[in-house]
């Protein structure tokens, strides 16, 4: 018997014969099956640039509009009603325990990526004090990461979610590189990690700074698109 971290009901985790034959402690799922079903994984055809679910494998309209400012992003789940409800409780209500809900799928996704250094998108000082955690690093279990990006002190912290697409696209560069960054990222392949890919503006700002630090390649992974 285990308790679902989201709906807090107890449930019986499914056990397969394979699990039993592995002779290892069974992984305890964080979510019951009905909470699990609230997330929609992105499978099959998707945009090769931003990772959104679509019928074709050609670059989507939004990515075309970015022109030459390219970035390759992968995303795990669709940003649908279920994911929004999750983000609402985890990020905005600040329910840190919900980080466990997506640790396992993120763990598997990271294992499929090719990179040398993992860089999570940081939160600003105000968010750190009020929310008390960085929602992105919360999803990491013990994978090593480097916090080489910082939010500039003068960056006005207005949540991206409160802005229109046009407003987001003109957001000025919010990030700066940590003093020790160059040593860590020069000539390395960097994977950026963020929660939601909406317009791609934030990730491109981050990627630009990482390139300035001398990285040889930058890609990104988000939980939702």
């Amino acid at each position, binding site marked *: 018997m285990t308790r679902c971290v989201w709906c807090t009901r107890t449930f019986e985790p499914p056990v397969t014969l394979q699990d039993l034959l592995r002779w290892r402690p069974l992984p305890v799922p964080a979510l019951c099956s009905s909470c699990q079903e609230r997330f929609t994984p992105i499978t099959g055809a998707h945009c090769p640039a931003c990772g959104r679910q679509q019928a074709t494998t050609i670059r989507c309209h939004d990515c075309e509009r970015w022109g030459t400012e390219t970035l390759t992003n992968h995303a795990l789940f669709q940003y649908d009603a279920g994911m929004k409800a999750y983000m609402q*409780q985890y990020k905005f209500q600040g*329910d*840190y325990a919900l980080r466990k809900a997506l640790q396992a799928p993120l763990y598997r996704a990271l294992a499929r990526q090719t990179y040398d250094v993992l860089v999570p998108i940081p939160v600003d000082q105000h968010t750190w004090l009020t929310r008390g*955690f960085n929602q992105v690093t919360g999803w990491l279990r013990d994978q090593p990461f480097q916090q080489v990006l910082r939010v500039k002190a003068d960056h006005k912290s207005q949540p991206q979610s409160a802005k229109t697409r046009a407003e987001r696209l003109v957001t000025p560069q919010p990030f700066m590189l940590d003093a020790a960054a160059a040593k860590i990222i020069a000539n390395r392949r960097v994977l950026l990690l963020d929660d939601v890919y909406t317009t791609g503006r934030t990730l491109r700002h981050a990627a630009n700074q990482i390139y300035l630090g001398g990285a040889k390649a930058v890609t990104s992974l988000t939980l939702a698109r």
Partner: protein
Amino acid sequence: MIDLSEYFGRRLSAATGTSQLGMGMPAVQQVGAHYQCQRCQQWLADTDQLPNGAWYCRQCLQLGRVTSQTKLYTIPEPNRFSPPESPLTWTGELSPDQQQAAESIRQHVQLGQNQLLWAVTGAGKTEIVYPALAWAVTQGWRIAWVSPRVDVCLELAPRIRAAFAAVSQCLLYGEQSAPYQYSQLTVCTTHQLLRFDQAFDWIIVDEVDAFPLATSPLLQLAITRAEKSKGQHLYLTATPGEKLQRQIRQRTLVTTYLPLRYHGYLLPQLRVRLAWRWRERLHKGRLPRPLIRQLLAYLGKGQRFLLFVPHVRDLPEIMAELGQQGVRGGVSVHAADPERTGKVQALRDQKLSYLVTTTILERGVTFSNIAVVILGGDDAVFSTAALVQIAGRAGRSADFPDGEVTCYVQTQTRVVRRAQAMITRLNRQGKQRGGRRP
């Protein structure tokens, strides 16, 4: 500049502290080796710590997160109201029975007693409380009318607003956006009481036996703390649970009965019919023959009906079989159905002949002249209270007080017998007051 009245009788966090609010108390406090939330009094798990070092409470998260870095502030309730001389603007009339119950409640309130109003479904229990409420308002009391169910609050608030038009009022529930306003009358969900601290002179708890209040120590604590130490409360119920019934028997709780519905007719009794292996048959997509015959007969004479079934997952099979057997002209509806309101209205407007539904329609939904059929009344989802409530759907209107209620079971369970016993008991008391058989 903060509005201090927001803190009258409350236990609330402040975005910015101010000297007028005093020191406040940490919202999460260490007690021994553990941490306890001072808003909901629940214990935190050992894992509920944030990377910035603060501890946070998950139990009352939906009221906005509090942590060990949050402070809660209270200003003792000053009862700063200017009540009108005659606050009751309701112009309806109470029946002699209702009047008698209303008088009894008012007397006990004046004596400062905790009490229970046990009134059958359809007795008009809200209006029965009005005279006592009017008196309490003139005393300058602060009063809360609470229910564990949001839909009850939403239905209640406009009625009370109209009945006490000149009294300051506010409605509080989970997802609303209207700002809080210090008011003499508060209609809210039981959860919202967690934001109060010794605020109310009188708390009226509607549907005291409804989920989740009946099983939640957290919500019961919320009521206790929101009530002033010299305050009192009134429980309203149509179907008291075991614990309340014991208190009634032992006379430890002052009780006013209203065993009669406002039109003076007795409650329809559950008629139990045996339906051998209804569940196994249902899995094979079949329904009991007597049930089909009964439903066809209803359709034949134009009698609308509600068919209650235990589970949402049963609905597709049942609808398919009903269609097969020629029981047409109805639809199914369940709690999460987006068209729920429309379907209920269609039945009311006689555009539908029947609804097949789960227990969600048991309370608060009224149709005039409706027959009620329960398939699987012995299923665990139906509590005694639920069965009595479902029976109460029938015969709600004075023009059609006769409502048939049939309950199909495989075995006669204790729950079903208790429901019948409760109806019998209510009807016995109703008869003493001159209640009529329909």
